[in-house]
């Protein structure tokens, strides 16, 4: 009996070692492909950056399309282009590596799944980036405008706008990635609806007395004669 146990253990170990030996070339192929494309991507990004600086790409872009600089001032067009090139090659390296891994294992399930999901990841990344840039730009606009209008709650307003845009972006990203399903939609709907309802109640109930007092004061106030401005800025 002990001989049979020993034989079973030996054969199962041999099977596992065989499977590892089968997978190992694929794993090595993945690592080699990824590192190779990483290196190529880094090299080409460096070359692209040098060429674009030589041709004064930032200055030329700055004259015509100020949109990038206005929305994301610290990321120059040159840097954006070189980063796009780098990450394209990294992505290609991952896909080639996965394909090489599957060539070794003769199973194409993973690559099929990844290839099908990559567009969603790319779309979600773009959505996330755009949402963050938009949130920063709009919140800063609201902050500065609020301060110039002498609103004491300008910062609060700005934070509220930023978080609303970020929450909306997060919900869109999760929906695009098909993560969470209806839970995300439901949760977002409840959250936004709750915020709007809370604001309505706060303004409606909280300012009821304020509005009525303000209207009474307005009705009782004598007609003001406009005073001439004492300071002229322009």
């Amino acid at each position, binding site marked *: 009996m002990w001989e049979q146990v020993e034989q079973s253990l030996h054969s199962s170990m041999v099977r596992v070692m065989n499977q590892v030996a089968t997978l190992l070339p694929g794993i090595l192929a993945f690592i080699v492909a990824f590192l190779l494309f990483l290196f190529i991507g880094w090299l080409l990004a460096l070359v692209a950056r040098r060429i674009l600086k030589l041709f004064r790409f930032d200055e030329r872009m*700055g*004259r015509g399309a*100020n949109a990038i*600089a*206005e*929305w994301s*001032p*610290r990321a120059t067009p040159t840097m954006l282009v070189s980063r796009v090139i780098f990450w394209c090659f990294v992505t290609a390296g991952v896909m080639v590596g996965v394909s090489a891994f599957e060539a070794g294992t003769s199973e194409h399930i993973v690559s099929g799944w990844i290839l099908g999901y990559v567009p969603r990841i790319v779309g979600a990344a773009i959505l996330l980036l755009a949402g963050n840039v938009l949130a920063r*730009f709009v919140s*800063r*606009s609201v*902050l*500065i*405008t*609020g*301060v*110039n209008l*002498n609103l*004491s709650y*300008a*910062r609060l307003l700005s934070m509220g706008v930023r978080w609303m845009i970020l929450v909306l972006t997060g919900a869109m990203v999760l929906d695009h990635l098909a993560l969470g399903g209806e839970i995300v939609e439901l949760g977002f709907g409840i959250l936004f609806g709750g915020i709007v309802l809370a604001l309505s109640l706060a303004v409606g109930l909280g300012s009821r007395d304020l509005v009525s007092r303000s209207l009474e004061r307005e009705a009782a106030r004598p007609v003001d004669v406009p005073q001439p*401005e*004492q*300071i*002229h*800025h*322009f």
Partner: protein
Amino acid sequence: MAVIELSDETKRQVERIGSADLVVGIAGPVPAEELRSRVEPIVAGLGSSVSLDRIVFAFAGPYAAAPAGGAEGESASQPRVALLPYAPPSAASGEFWSGVSVQQRTILALAASLNARACIVLGADLAALQTHVLQLLAYAVLDRQCVLAMPVYPAGRYEGLINTGILSPLSRSLFGKRIHYPIAFDFAVSGGMCGHFLRQTAASNGAGPALLWPVTVAATQFPQQAVGQVHVSVHHRVATEGLELSAVLGQMVGSLFQEMEQFAPQWQRVRGSQATPVWGNAPEEKPGGEPVDPQPMLDSFLLGSRNLDEVWRLILPPNVLLDLRRLTRTAPEQFRMPDELWAGIVYDFALAYRLRTISRVHLLGALTPLYLGWVASWIQEVSRLSGAALEQRQEQLARAWEEKKPYLLSRWRWPDRFNP
């Protein structure tokens, strides 16, 4: 904005007139009858004081308003007069100064087309359409051979504060010309330079609102030619209703920052400033008037310092932020913003504008509370000064800007050496 193009009908009118010695342009729509009634006594008053054969008065209006031939002079000593309506470009309805600048460029284009010896541009409210104003401007350009003559308005101590606090001292320190009003409703240009003003402003177009800065063009393109000033007793009525301070400040200061960027090679070579000749009689000193309460401006500055710290931190160096923080803890009656600090702040904003540290719209919006802090400090200082003392104080402010210029130069040339 593209190069100023005259409409076909305007070109036909110009061809019919042929040429003119002096073009007086009204930068805005004016009823032709009102203009004609104002022009006749003025031309009679000009008489032989200026040696002109033909004067063309250009104004924005319908072509049927005035025939191009106009009225001939009643006597041989009076110049011949023609009224020339022009169609204002569509961009003339832009915000505040943009519209005015477009009209001014159109008038310069007309003067260039008519081969005029001089061109005088006046504000649309006709406040400057007076004999002595035209005489002085024509004298400066035609007799004294100035390439440009700018006005000196009789401003009170609380008037034109954007000009006093930013535009005039910045323009002076950059381009070395001591001009009270570097941008104005009224000015005169020599004829040979009209076309050059157009070419220059056309080259600077294409990036943001392009205002017309006559002093910048004269100082950079014709540094050896004289620029003069004339005292004009004119008060322009500026419709301020609906105008937001931050929008106007952003437009005017942003435009001057653009000029800085464009003419960087020129202003970096300028050291100090030169006095410019002034003609005409200085107005009588106005009474001081009631002191103004600086508290609203101070409140705006304090609100800005509490809320915009994260934005200012991207633009201003730490020592300036520290000085501003100290100012916020000062008692209101002792609130004083040093001239050097204020000049440094504007220079830092100019640099951030050039480097696009943050969005330019945000940058110029974030300047408003700082400007109001300066205004609060300024009006407390000058409220009890006499006219002469006020002028000295303004001169002191302008010198502080000149002395701070090496700081601007070093940061402009080597921006990476210090980056907040």
